[in-house]
């Protein structure tokens, strides 16, 4: 009899305890974030207002100088550097796309794999390039390999995490229905989870596309003979700011084009998504 009386009470206490803990954690974390936001902003404002003479001329080259640099090195850039960087970018992004999807699938597939992969993913994003540069060089030599790998490293992470979140976010009732219809795990995955994850996947791909060109530039910092990164580094080191900013401009341009391409493909692939949202969808294009 005593169990009959005590159990519910224990349960009630447990619930209360959970609620309190929950509230506590959220308040503490929220408070911390708020404090950090306020003090951080205050710090920025304080330091910025302390600045005396902020004269920016001759830190940035004039647009004319940049245009001049373009004219001077047009051939070099169009024939050597840009194609090289573009090839590294696209190869890396494509590999990252596949890798990201595979990792997301694995993490979605098994809890054990998730426990193993999660730390690896996080670590892969926190290791500075130089720490693995030697490995890349040892494995791939001084060819395109290291650069492609850096692009992959930059890009697979947002794809993997976002796709994983998307897979996990699939409507559980839909999944149940498919299971009731006798779908195998694999079928549930391809027919329900994956399509449901697509909007989230594209959001990750968009982030990845933004990073991809930068990744290639970064990879070229490890070692390269050609590419926008090489051009940038050489120019900056010999104080040719006009050329350096030209390189940055071209990088941004390429990134922008890639992002627009992703948006276009998204629009065309997720027709159902945009059809449903058409009424509330403001503005045309692939933006």
């Amino acid at each position: 009899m005593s169990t009959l009386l005590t159990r519910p009470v224990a349960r009630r206490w447990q619930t209360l305890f959970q609620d309190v803990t929950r509230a506590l954690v959220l308040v503490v974390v929220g408070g911390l974030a708020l404090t950090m936001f306020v003090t951080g902003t205050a710090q920025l404002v304080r330091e910025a207002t302390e600045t005396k003479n902020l004269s920016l001329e001759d830190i940035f080259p004039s647009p004319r100088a940049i245009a001049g640099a373009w004219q001077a090195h047009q051939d070099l850039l169009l024939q050597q550097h840009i194609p090289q960087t573009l090839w590294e970018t696209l190869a890396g992004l494509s590999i990252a796309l596949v890798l990201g999807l595979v990792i997301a699938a694995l993490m979605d597939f098994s809890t054990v794999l998730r426990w193993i992969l999660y730390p690896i993913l996080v670590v892969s994003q926190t290791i500075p390039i130089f720490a693995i540069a030697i490995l890349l060089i040892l494995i791939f030599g001084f060819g395109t390999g290291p650069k492609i790998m850096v692009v992959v490293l930059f890009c697979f992470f947002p794809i993997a995490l976002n796709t994983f979140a998307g897979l996990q976010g699939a409507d559980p009732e839909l999944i149940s229905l498919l299971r009731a219809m006798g779908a195998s795990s694999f079928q549930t995955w391809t027919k329900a989870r994956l399509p449901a994850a697509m909007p989230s996947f594209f959001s990750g791909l968009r982030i990845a596309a933004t990073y991809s060109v930068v990744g290639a530039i970064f990879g070229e910092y490890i070692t390269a003979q050609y590419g926008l990164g090489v051009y940038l580094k050489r120019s900056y080191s010999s104080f040719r700011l006009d050329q350096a900013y030209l390189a940055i401009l071209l990088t941004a341009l390429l990134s922008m084009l890639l992002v627009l391409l992703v948006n276009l493909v998204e629009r065309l692939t997720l027709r159902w998504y945009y059809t449903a949202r058409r009424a509330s969808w403001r503005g045309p294009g692939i933006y």
Partner: protein
Amino acid sequence: RAQDDEELAQYLGGATEFARADERTAVTLVLDWVPNTNHLGFYVAQALGYYDEANLDVTVQEPTDLQVETVVVSGAAEFGVSYQEVATYALADETPIISLAAIIQHNTSGFVTLHDQDPIERPADMAGLVYGGFGQPELELAVLDRLLECDGAEPGTIEYVDVGYADAIPLMERDRFDLVWIYYAWTGIEAELRGVDLDAIMLMDYLDCVPDYYTPILITSHTMVEEHPDVVAAFVQATARGFAYAIAYPNEAADILLEAVPELDADLVHASAEWLAAQFMADAPRWGQQSVEVWQGFSDFLVEHGILDEGIDAEAAFTNEFLPGTVDEDAG
């Protein structure tokens, strides 16, 4: 060409014959930084076929994000351009590398200020200034303090700020700090070209105070020296010829570099090549000559300032064995 050989021999210990690799060998050289006038000899040797004559296929590899020592030891590249200070750290860490040649005979770096803002003439004038460092405060402050001390000023009176990636001179012009340590041949010349009036304390001029050290140097791994001495000799000697040419014909050497790396600023390369021509060999008996005193002196300096726990074996740190020609070792 014969006349050239004659003229260049004076920088090469009199040599006119040079080592060749036993068989055609492909080797990679990693640079320490973006191609610049410190690397003139390599590009010349490549362009004028000196490497080819030495039976070598050389790839000049632009810098990596890595310490050159690591790359060389890993075997990914056979040769590398480094600095004596980093090589010393690496040796203290028992990294199996060895220095093959001093690319520039003396330390051509120096501390500069903007003449208009903080004129300095002697080390003591630096006291009280704000120094914009590149992130190795122990070494940097040790050198600065020593300079102050030698000139009778109070050490520890220079304030250190880390400037990291940022370009120093524009920041000095905006009064973010006063003093910076530069390679005169590159940053100093560039400022001159831009008409910025710099005051410089060159370390060359205070060798009795802060010991001299080689910067940059050519290094390889123990493995190479032990297993392929022919390749090492062939490479070092062909490189020496390249630098000899750069000493004799700085203008032409500059053009060769610009041909290979068109992104560089032509005026800067020419002016810098001109300036360096006198510095590559300087007062040494031949290009590349190193001495045990320099290696020992600098190691001692680091130990004295607590930067290293233990000194290195200076004898084992370098070798002149692969340089071309012969010289009276005591003359160095």
